[in-house]
Structures are given as structure tokens and as C-alpha cells.
């Protein structure tokens, strides 16, 4: 059993509660029920996830060395985590040598304070922002707002979310739950100076955002960004995007503040040759995204002349302290696992209550925040999955999300006992049962990865299989050797039996 960090001495602290967006107000099953009642949302999400999924398969299939790239990507990230202190120090030295300033933020509260102080030092009451999950995680916009600084999201989807007083629902396409007529409404109601005759043609909606933000790009003197990677060897940072709003924010203002999770480091510049192949193809299903910006400190006469990077912990060291859980820190936020997840497809991103939705959110969020008791909404997240394994197969850095979910379920049960997870499992299965495409066989594929208590047997299965386990316990597969168990005669027999009984 690895340490779980529920108040254990010496365990790194989790992300503080009450700041940022890592915890919803209700458990996954409760939230999922509202979301499931919204057919429009489900149609939008189904369309989006299926489209991206097909594109991804097409462009990953083009590369004969795709699997080799995944193996390298995974190993590079493991190596990074193994050597994180030295790589962070190397990164810091390289940034400083090129005229940048490095700040360290132990948690969201500190990160918000650092950024606020840096913005205030510029005298500006406005900032422009590039889509960044880290700043969403720490609730930066809301914090800035509280001290009278207005943050403008410049990514089209983020702008739609911001103007709609809404929350992102997908890592890559945060406004995917909105359709064009809703977006038109939002623009008409919330966008200063918008043409009242705006129709709902996506071309025209995008043009409206171009017009709205152009002036901001040209006049606001400070930008805040995230980063897709920070290179230890050279201190180079990279942002991957499509619209050019990133380039605007990274190039035109005098001051640039980049907030980056400590796990975003990669060791060498040459490692980009792996991640610049893995990320766009997994993310948007493109061979390459339209724009990628890379910069190193300050370049005289080109781009921001004041550059700050804020390195963020906020629960990441707690995830790192768990030998199994730390895998989640390999994530490059491509969102492929969301697009293949049958549960996400039914519930959308809001049900997860966190900046990080979908399969990766279900394993990353509870690790960043901890699971503080049986009523903690985040304690229900490891159950928000059918354990079908599609996320693992899609992940460009080979994060074994199903095993992580099992591990977190163990931890949850060990520390808070059985209880809400039964309901949580039911929610996942309700989501599943409306996914008619998914055959029972696929559900059964997840059977071994279900709740097992200390006695090492599986005693709770989601309906319609719960009746089966009421009557008898089945042996739980050893936590880290699910694949072996699955292939064994015993595993096959158990699954076959469950399948037969469930369909009878």
C-alpha cells in the first residue's frame, strides 16, 4: 500500500480547499444526473468526441512508429519525474541566464498572489490570457477580479466560457457543450461593441471574437499564459495552439507571466521531437497544430521584455509521493482520454467538478486535492469510470488510468470505508446504460477493475452486475497485474460468468 496522504506525517500537502477549481460542490453521481438530463449537451459532446476520435485514429495510424513514440514519450516523462529536483534547478538557471525571473508557488493561494503582484507592478488593470489549465486550476481570473483586475480569455472557446459565466467542459475544446446558437446569444448579450445583427455562422462568430480581442492584443501590456512544456536544458517554454491568440499574448505585451505546473518539464530540447509528434496528433487529430510558440527568457527587440515563470506545486508533490499515482503527472493534457471515454461522453466535463475532467481528471483531481472524507465530491471521482481501458489505449504517454482508478478506489475504501462509491458506481453504469453502442462485453471487460476491499475480494459491482456479487464474492485481481489476471484462465472464467449472468 502506498501512502495516501490523509493527514499522514511528512506527506506533502494537497491543494488547498476553497481556492481555484479542483473540487465541485456535489459528487460525480449527483452532478452526472443533472448533466444526463441535458440531451443537447450529450449530442454536442458525442459529436465532438467522435469527430476528434476519428481524426486522431487517422493521423496516428499514419505514423508507423507511433507506438515507439508513445514508449519514448512515456519513458521521458517517467525519467523527468525521477529527476525532477535537478531538472527544475537546471530549468530555473537557464531561464534566469536568459533574463527571465523564476517564482515558486507552493499552492494556488501563493500562485495567485505572485501573479497579482506582478500584474500590479505593471500598473495595468487588464491582462490578456492564453488558454491555460494551470491558471484555471488556481482560479486566477477570479482572484484578479477580486482585486479589480480584469482578465480577458483570448482563446475562442475560453472566451465563450468566460462571457457565458460558465465552466470549461473539455480540456481541448472547453465550450464544446455549447452550440452555435447559444454562442451567438452569449456574444450578443455579453460582448462589448458586438454587431447586433450577428448570426450564428461559426465564421462570423469567430470574426466577432477577432474584432473584439484585436484591440486588447494591441493595447494590454501584460499577458498570462500556461505552458505545454518547459525544457530544462535550455529554459525554453512552449505553447501549442491554433488560433494565433497565443502568439498575440506571447509576443505583443511588454510583460509575460507564465504559470506552469512543475511536472511540465522535459529534459532536453531534442525531446520536443517526440512531444511535437505525440501532442497534436493525440489532441486535435492534426499532424501539427497551426501554431506553436517557443521562447527562452527575453529576446531584446522581440517580444516581452519582462518575463516571469511561476512554477506551481498545488498538490503535485503529493501525487508524486504516491508511487502508483505519480503516473498521472506524465499527462500532457492532450484530451485523447476524454474523447474515448464512454462515461465522459454521456456526462460531459462539468460532472467532474474540476478543471481536469474525464479519465485523467478522475485520477489527477483526487490526488491533487486528496480525498478528505466520504462526503468529499472528489472521493467519488475514481468511481466515475467503467474501467473499459479505452483511455489507456489512447494515451500518448501510456498512463495506465484504469490501474490508477483501482488504486484510488482502494485508497478511498481504506480510508473512508464503503458507502457513496456504490452510488458512484451506479452513476457510471447509468451513464453506460444509455450508451447503446457499448456492448455488455465492453462493460464486462472492466469487471476485474472494480472495488475490492481489504479482504482482496470484489464485493460490489455496478448494476446490472451488483446482484451477482451480492450472492458471492469474486477474487480481486492483484492491483498491478490486472492484465495478467485478465489473460488468465481464472480471469476469463470470471468475466464469462459475469457476462452470462448479467445478460440472462
Amino acid at each position, binding site marked *: 500500500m502506498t501512502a495516501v496522504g490523509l493527514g499522514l506525517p511528512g506527506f506533502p500537502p494537497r491543494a488547498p480547499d476553497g481556492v481555484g477549481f479542483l473540487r465541485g460542490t456535489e459528487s460525480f453521481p449527483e452532478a452526472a444526473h443533472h448533466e444526463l438530463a441535458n440531451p443537447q449537451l450529450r449530442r454536442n459532446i458525442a459529436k465532438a468526441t467522435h469527430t476528434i476520435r476519428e481524426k486522431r485514429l487517422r493521423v496516428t495510424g499514419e505514423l508507423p512508429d507511433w507506438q515507439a513514440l508513445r514508449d519514448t514519450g512515456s519513458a521521458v516523462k517517467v525519467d523527468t519525474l525521477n529527476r525532477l529536483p535537478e531538472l527544475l534547478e537546471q530549468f530555473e538557471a537557464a531561464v534566469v541566464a536568459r533574463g527571465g525571473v523564476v517564482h515558486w508557488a507552493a499552492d494556488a493561494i501563493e500562485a495567485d498572489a505572485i501573479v497579482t503582484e506582478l500584474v500590479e507592478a505593471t500598473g495595468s488593470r487588464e491582462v490578456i490570457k492564453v488558454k491555460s489549465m494551470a491558471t484555471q486550476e488556481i482560479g486566477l481570473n477570479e482572484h484578479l477580479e477580486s482585486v479589480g483586475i480584469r482578465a480577458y480569455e483570448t482563446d475562442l472557446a475560453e472566451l465563450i466560457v468566460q462571457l457565458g459565466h460558465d465552466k470549461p467542459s473539455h480540456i481541448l475544446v472547453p465550450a464544446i457543450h455549447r452550440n452555435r446558437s447559444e454562442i451567438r446569444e452569449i456574444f450578443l448579450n455579453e460582448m462589448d461593441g458586438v454587431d447586433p445583427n450577428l448570426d450564428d455562422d461559426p465564421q462570423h462568430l*469567430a470574426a466577432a471574437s477577432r474584432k473584439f480581442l484585436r484591440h486588447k492584443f494591441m493595447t494590454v501590456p501584460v499577458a498570462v499564459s500556461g505552458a505545454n512544456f518547459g525544457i530544462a536544458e535550455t529554459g525554453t517554454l512552449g505553447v501549442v495552439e491554433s488560433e494565433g491568440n497565443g502568439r498575440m499574448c506571447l509576443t505583443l505585451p511588454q510583460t509575460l507571466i507564465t504559470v506552469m505546473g512543475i511536472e511540465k518539464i522535459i529534459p532536453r530540447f531534442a525531446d520536443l521531437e517526440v512531444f511535437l509528434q505525440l501532442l497534436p496528433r493525440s489532441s486535435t487529430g492534426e499532424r501539427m497544430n497551426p501554431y506553436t510558440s517557443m521562447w527562452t527568457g527575453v529576446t531584446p527587440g522581440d*517580444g516581452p521584455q519582462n518575463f516571469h515563470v511561476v512554477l506551481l506545486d498545488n498538490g503535485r508533490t503529493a501525487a*508524486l*509521493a504516491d508511487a502508483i499515482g505519480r503516473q498521472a503527472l506524465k499527462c500532457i493534457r492532450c484530451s485523447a482520454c476524454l474523447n474515448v471515454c464512454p462515461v465522459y461522453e454521456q456526462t460531459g466535463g462539468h460532472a467532474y467538478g474540476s478543471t481536469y475532467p474525464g479519465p485523467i481528471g478522475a485520477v489527477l483531481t483526487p490526488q491533487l486535492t486528496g480525498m478528505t472524507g466520504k462526503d468529499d465530491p472528489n472521493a467519488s471521482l475514481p468511481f466515475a469510470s467503467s474501467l473499459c481501458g479505452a483511455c489507456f489505449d489512447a494515451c500518448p504517454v501510456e498512463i495506465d488510468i484504469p490501474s490508477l482508478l483501482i488504486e484510488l478506489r482502494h485508497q478511498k475504501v481504506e480510508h473512508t470505508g464503503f458507502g457513496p462509491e456504490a452510488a458512484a458506481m451506479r452513476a457510471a453504469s447509468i451513464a453506460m446504460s444509455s450508451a447503446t453502442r457499448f456492448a455488455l462485453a465492453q462493460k464486462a471487460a472492466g469487471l476485474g477493475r472494480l472495488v475490492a476491499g481489504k479482504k482482496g475480494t470484489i464485493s460490489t459491482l455496478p448494476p446490472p452486475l451488483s446482484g451477482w456479487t451480492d450472492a458471492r464474492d469474486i477474487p480481486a485481481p492483484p492491483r498491478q497485474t490486472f492484465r495478467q489476471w485478465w489473460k488468465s484462465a481464472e480471469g476469463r472464467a470470471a468475466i464469462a460468468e459475469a457476462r452470462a449472468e448479467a445478460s440472462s
Partner: protein
Amino acid sequence: MSSRTVILGRIREALVDAPPTPVTVPREYRVDRTLPDAERIDLLIDRLEDYDARVYRCDTAHLPAMLARVLTDAGARRVGVPTGLDESWLADFGGEVVVDGTDIPAPDLEDLDAVVTGSAVTCAETGTIFLDAGPDQGRRALTLVPDVHVCVVTVDSVEVGVPEALARLVPERPTTLVSGPSATVDIELERVQGVHGPRHLHVVLVDQAPPRTPS
């Protein structure tokens, strides 16, 4: 204690309490690929056009005429260039040529109809042009603010794949990777071209010798 010390301490402790499994990074993916000029360029053209860039080909001698034609067809009258662009390139262009300088405020670049630059290296397999702020490319704002970017790519700067292209970069230079014009899929996943970056990307491929296929 500074947060730097705190965070580094937490990481070190985490790695002591849950010791990492050492890993050897496998490198089995393709590197050092080469393809004959014709195949490499065909691949590049296919990828550029797939992302809605307009592609033109000519040899060095015909570059000024080609650029003049492309700019005129794009309706450009006022054209920005970086300080290090070969002056002869725009010799045939009849409109106004503005040489960029760091004293020109970025918003003024909006008055340019188009910008003409060179490029550092290009990846055929992904249709990606790498700009590294070299003298023939200029500062990043120059290729960002104007609505039309005409980018000259020489055949010998085209590499097959991402690893080969990246190997030719100087990491510390501010670098922009461009794959087609600005685009978004944020509304119902429908691709819309041209949001904040240039809405039109014209790529002029330049051979040393006359082109094998007519453009």
C-alpha cells in the same frame, strides 16, 4: 523557508519515500530520415494544401516575379519585410515596401496589407514552417499582425520529419511553428480559418534549378 526550498524539499522527500523505478528511455522512432527532393517537396505540398495554405513554385531567378504576382493577387499594396530580407526579392513588386524595425510599434503593423519573409526550416511530413526570427524573418510580431503572410521556403531547407527539422534549430531563438493559416474548431468542431493570426498563408517554394513540375 522560501517556497523554492519547500517545493524542492517535498519533491526530494517524495522520491525517497516512494523511490522511483529507474528507466532507460527507448529511442526506436524514426530519425535522420531523408527523401529525394521530388518526393519531399510533393509531400510538403500535399500537407500545406491540406491545411489551406496556397503553394507556389519557382526557381531563384523567377522569385521576384513570383512574389510580385502573389502579392498583387492578394491585393497587397503596402508590404512589410524584415531588415534582412534580400532586397532583390521585391524588385518586381510595384507597391510600397516597408522595412520593419524595433522602433515601429506593433499596432502599426496592422496597416500592412501583407508581409514577406524567409523561413528557417520546414517539415514536410506535417507541413510545418519554422520561423526563428532570423534576419530574413524578423521579429515575431511582423509575421503575426498583418493578415497575409507570404513565406519563402527554399527546397534545401525542407526536412522530412519533425526530428530532422528540429535538429536544425537553435533552441534559444524565439521560434514559431506555422502549419497553415490561423484556425479554430471551437464552435461545434467546425473548422474556421483565420481567427487572430494571419488569415492567409502563401508559401513560395524556391528551387535552385527550374522546377520539375510546372506550378
